[in-house]
């Protein structure tokens, strides 16, 4: 069954920069897909469209057969709640505790009044602590998020996403801010948790070896288009070399995208 489906998605920023051109991708339940490509390929824009943070200029994105762009209010919030997000720069509340950061993932279904004074149900708190323990942060639960290292912060963000009990996990360059050794550890944790929870995951990655290590399928992107979409065993070095050829040109495109974003 298709969990995530993008059909002919085109995205143009208000300044006219075309970030995506007729991108079509389908992700089956339980699949782990890596989106690979040089910077400026449109991976982040695609992530935003998948997550419902941006609305495609043309084409449609469906998550579990629902088009987020067509929803409003409560329905939209609950649809968002079904998608867990992990960002490159963690996006945590630094001054709040690790536990409180993870509990943010439970707010959508918590009591709207008592949650305002940070009163969360025993079930929600237990789930949050359990997830933190499983990503190796059992000792850090009460610490402030900004006292943790980069790798630990990204694990807090992962626990926050998982606490939503999502069907789909999307990650945008989750380890680009970490050094290579930490990066491998964090990516392995993400994939292990995704498997344990039986989720579907789409990971935007820059690093080829990480993508080959964890993904079942690799979608190669360049200049806003899908260049290939193959099981990881069929992704040859030649294909990858083509994908990253003339990265200088792509870097210019990245600059354009950054200016637009």
């Amino acid at each position: 069954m298709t969990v995530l489906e993008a059909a002919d998605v085109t995205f143009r920023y208000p300044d006219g920069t075309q970030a995506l051109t007729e991108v079509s991708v389908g992700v089956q339940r339980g699949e782990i897909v890596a989106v690979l490509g040089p910077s400026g390929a449109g991976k982040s824009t695609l992530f935003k469209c998948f997550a419902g943070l941006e609305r495609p200029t043309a084409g449609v994105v469906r998550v579990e057969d629902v088009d987020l762009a067509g929803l409003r209010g409560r329905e939209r919030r609950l649809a968002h709640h079904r998608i867990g997000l992990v960002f490159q720069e963690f996006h945590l509340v630094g001054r709040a505790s690790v536990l409180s950061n993870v509990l943010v993932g439970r707010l959508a279904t918590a009591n709207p009044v008592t949650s305002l004074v940070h009163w969360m149900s025993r079930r929600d708190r237990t789930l949050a602590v359990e997830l933190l323990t499983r990503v190796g942060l059992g000792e850090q639960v009460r610490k402030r998020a900004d006292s943790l290292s980069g790798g630990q912060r990204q694990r807090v963000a992962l626990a926050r996403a998982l606490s939503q009990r999502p069907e789909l996990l999307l990650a945008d360059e989750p380890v680009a801010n970490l050094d290579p050794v930490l990066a491998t550890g964090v990516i392995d944790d993400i994939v292990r948790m995704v498997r344990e929870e039986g989720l579907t995951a789409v990971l935007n990655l820059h690093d080829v070896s990480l993508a080959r290590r964890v993904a079942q399928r690799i979608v190669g992107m360049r200049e806003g288009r899908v260049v290939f979409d193959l099981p990881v065993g069929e992704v040859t070095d030649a294909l990858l070399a083509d994908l990253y050829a003339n990265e200088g040109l792509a870097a210019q495109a990245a600059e354009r995208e950054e200016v637009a974003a």
Partner: protein
Amino acid sequence: MTATIEKAPDPAPEKAPRQAPTRRDEIERLARLRRPSWGTIAGAVGVVALLGWSSTSTGFSGPALVDGLPHVADFVGRMFPPNLEELPVAIELMFETLGIAITGTVFGVLLAIPLSLLAARNIFPQPWIRDTTRVVVNVFRAIPELMWALLFVSAVGLGAFAGTLAIMVGTAFGVARLFADIFETADMRAWDAAAATGARKSQRIAWVLLPQQLPTMASYTLLVLDGNVRAASLLGLVGAGGIGMELNQQLRLFEYGSVMTIVLVVLVVVMSLDLLSSYVRKRFV
């Protein structure tokens, strides 16, 4: 000024092809003092005129000040020695003053938070909400605390309650503007991430925005409390409670020794609060 002033350019345009300015000429041209523009001259004249008008309208005169100096010395002289019998009364009233300032500040800040959220562009992007709130806040912020005190004295009668209300309202509108600006400089990434989990706006305020901004808000609140203690010491002049009422009375009775005691008590309290709050604020930020 003895500097050379650049001459106005020759009005007759040169017929001969203009030579490209040499580097030397260029340096000298830039090094020359520019003649002040007519706008600057008009502005300077205006400032001098304004000062002249305001000092005559207030009867400000040097000779009168010099003539008055002995009287000032006499006045200060009669304040010594301070009347220590006044001390218990002054201390008791200082506690009342602090009570007015603290209660007014706390409730004022609590009122300011919802107002400031409505006035922050990144929390309520709808321009009509933000603009309406900003206009209301700016209008009421322009009313000084003593005027609020006069209003509340006639509404709830003489006493500390009127003073507390005055401080509260003054703080609410003053701080609302401050907090709105603090919220608008917040890092919105965690806010956006929380929105993407499906959390409501009210929940995002309680879990993301306030925890992030609380230290800055607390620091400004202490600063405002400082000012409010000073304001509360004056409220008594219009009968709104606190130490000012006693000060006014002793002045009218020409009990300058008691006046001195009161002034000293205010001085000690305000200065120690200033030290305390700057110490605490350093630890916050």
